[in-house]
């Protein structure tokens, strides 16, 4: 264990062997990880464009409404699926395989497997997006890619999952770090989720309302058992790594991990409160959602105690700033989710923009921010170059942070008021639309802020690949530290 803690601690000067070891791992992962990152950033830009378009369509319904492939009901799922599979999953896979190799401390074999998987994954996303825009979607939320596109994604994914398990099997003997549990679990859960959902919903559809149950079992578990473990694995690695301090408590890590696995997997049915299902299924999900307090607070305490006394590092380290904002948002969004599951609040927010705000807080405020943080750490190690501009990183951070805050704020408040009116039998339906309209306009504008953030990041990423900005002896910091870091 002390071996690993030492390797996790940048304060201890690494011996020659671990320099060589890390360089070897980074070199062999350069192509596949940059492939996932690069294509992910491209999808992020396209997904932002479609998201902004869909958002403005709610304020201006006549915007680009003459072509069928640009209608709201196709642009919106195209935006969601591009963000989920093209951006978030791809960058999550990139971060996941890099962390797995670094923590297993062996140079990965079968690099070709990963490159093949990366190419296939992107072809799958491309085919699926074209399918949605061409009118092939079956309107099952989070699974809109047509049945002829999803097998490509599944095969690509299977290659990655197999690689991950092989990697873990042939790791250097010694302690297994908490990030590795989360990654191994994510690598095993996702194919089960994706295979079940595609089999029962797309290839051999089940009857009637069962579709709803499977749909939300999948939809919520993609967040909880795919994105969340990858995001937490990254936070568990980056925070101690940047600070040069070990994680506060090993036992809290264990509790957090297993309670997440147990409770999160049962959450999905809270999306269907009052729906055509046995009441116990909904109740079980509501209870499990509230029980999420346990893993969330456990992880929050663990991260907070690790950070304690070191919050001033957030002024300097881009990795730490993005990661810690992401980890704090994870706590907020999860507690919000637990509260939203409670029937009285669930009834109010169900069917409103409030839920959309919650989804963005999770997938963006937590996951995407955490992934940006990880990329700020990983890309320099792959390219052998430091980030060319601290100013651009600051722009990226503030545009992204203010954009997501504005978006979630407007959707939350607007959705709340919308919910009050939707539930009031005395209020006409159109009134709820009028009430929420200004909030929707603000939300659409917040999308412009986020798109600008992504553009800045994309330019930075390309400049990085081109090794622009002159060589630097030290890592690029957000601002020069006033006191020397101890």
């Amino acid at each position, binding site marked *: 264990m002390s071996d690993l803690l030492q390797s996790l601690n940048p304060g201890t000067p690494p011996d020659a062997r671990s320099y060589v070891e890390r360089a070897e791992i980074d070199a062999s992962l350069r192509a596949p990880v940059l492939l996932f990152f690069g294509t992910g950033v491209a999808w992020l830009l396209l997904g932002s464009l479609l998201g902004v378009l869909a958002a403005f369509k709610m304020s201006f319904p006549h915007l680009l409404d003459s072509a069928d492939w640009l209608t709201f*009901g196709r642009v919106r799922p195209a935006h969601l699926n591009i963000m989920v599979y093209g951006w978030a999953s791809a960058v999550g896979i990139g971060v996941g395989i890099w962390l797995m190799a670094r923590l297993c401390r062996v140079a990965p074999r079968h690099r070709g497997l990963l490159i093949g998987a990366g190419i296939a994954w992107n072809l799958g996303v491309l085919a699926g997006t074209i399918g949605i825009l061409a009118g092939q979607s079956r309107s099952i939320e989070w699974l809109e890619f047509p049945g002829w596109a999803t097998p490509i994604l599944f095969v690509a994914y299977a290659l990655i999952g197999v690689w991950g398990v092989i990697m873990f099997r042939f790791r250097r003997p010694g302690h297994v770090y908490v990030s590795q549990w989360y990654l191994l679990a994510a690598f095993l859960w996702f194919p089960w989720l994706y295979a079940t959902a595609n089999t029962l919903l797309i290839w051999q559809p089940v009857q*009637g309302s069962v579709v709803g149950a499977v749909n939300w079992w999948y939809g919520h578990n993609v967040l909880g058992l795919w994105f969340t473990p990858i995001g937490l694995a990254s936070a568990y690695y980056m925070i101690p790594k940047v600070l040069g301090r070990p994680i506060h408590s090993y036992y809290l890590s264990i509790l957090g991990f297993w309670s997440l*696995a147990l409770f999160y997997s*049962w959450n999905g049915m809270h999306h269907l409160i*009052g729906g055509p299902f046995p009441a116990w*299924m909904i109740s079980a999900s509501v209870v499990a959602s509230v029980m999420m307090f346990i893993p969330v607070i456990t992880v929050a305490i663990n991260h907070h105690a690790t950070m304690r006394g070191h919050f001033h590092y957030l002024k300097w380290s881009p990795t730490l700033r993005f990661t810690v904002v992401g980890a704090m948002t994870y706590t907020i969004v999860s507690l919000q989710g637990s509260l939203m599951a409670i029937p009285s609040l669930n009834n109010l927010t169900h*069917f409103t923009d409030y839920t959309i705000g919650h989804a963005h807080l999770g997938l963006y405020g937590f996951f995407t921010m955490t992934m940006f943080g990880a990329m700020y750490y990983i890309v320099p190690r792959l390219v052998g170059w430091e980030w060319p501009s601290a100013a651009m990183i600051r722009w990226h951070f503030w545009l992204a942070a203010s954009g997501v805050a504005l978006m979630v704020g407007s959707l939350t408040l607007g959705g709340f008021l919308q919910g009050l009116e939707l539930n009031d039998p005395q209020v006409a339906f159109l009134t709820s639309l009028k009430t929420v309209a200004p909030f929707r306009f603000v939300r659409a504008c917040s999308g412009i802020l986020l798109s600008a953030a992504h553009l800045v990041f994309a330019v930075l990423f390309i400049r990085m690949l081109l090794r622009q900005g002159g060589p630097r002896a030290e890592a690029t910091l957000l601002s020069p530290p006033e006191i020397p870091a101890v």
Partner: protein
Amino acid sequence: MNKLPLLFVGILLVFSTSWIGLVAYPYLKLGRLAPEASRDGLVPPPLTASAIGGERVYAANGCIYCHSQQVRPAWLSTDIEKGWGPRQTVARDYIRESPPFLGTMRTGPDLTNIDVRRPDRVWHYQHLYEPGTVTPGSIMPSFRFLFKVQPIKDRPSFEAVAVHGPHAPPRGYEVVPTQDARDLVAYLLSLKHNYPLPEAGDPPAADAGK
């Protein structure tokens, strides 16, 4: 937690509980329901071929992102008071649909009983072509691409849609629905879940669905 087999089995076992509870159980319990015989024939009545086509148009154009199709029970919600339907919807209401469009948003009204509220085919054509003409204030997009604007030949087609105001076709032209529009409206007019079902509680009152 340094042993691969322990982690492996634990990770899969814990997850399998939710798979059994939320996937396998509803599949076994609700996955093989049959229509109920009633005085008026089988309920829910099977979809016509055109309505099945319309279901695909509904899915392709993402109606579900704004319209739900579920009426929640009175003890939990005001759906029935709001007029979305006379009773809560139950699993059997959805057996003919593949997939069912339960929905998670109400940017537009619930459509479970749209045929009861809007039984007029022409209204639906006008609404799909230019929603604002029949429901001012609506933010539903126009589905003009489901229609053809064509020159009037000798006399207007029998199914030409009357469109007035700024969105009317130029003089000498008429708006006619494509097959997709006909199918979609056939599907919308099949959405009528006001028949009684034993598992759905109280039978509907006389003015049900209003």
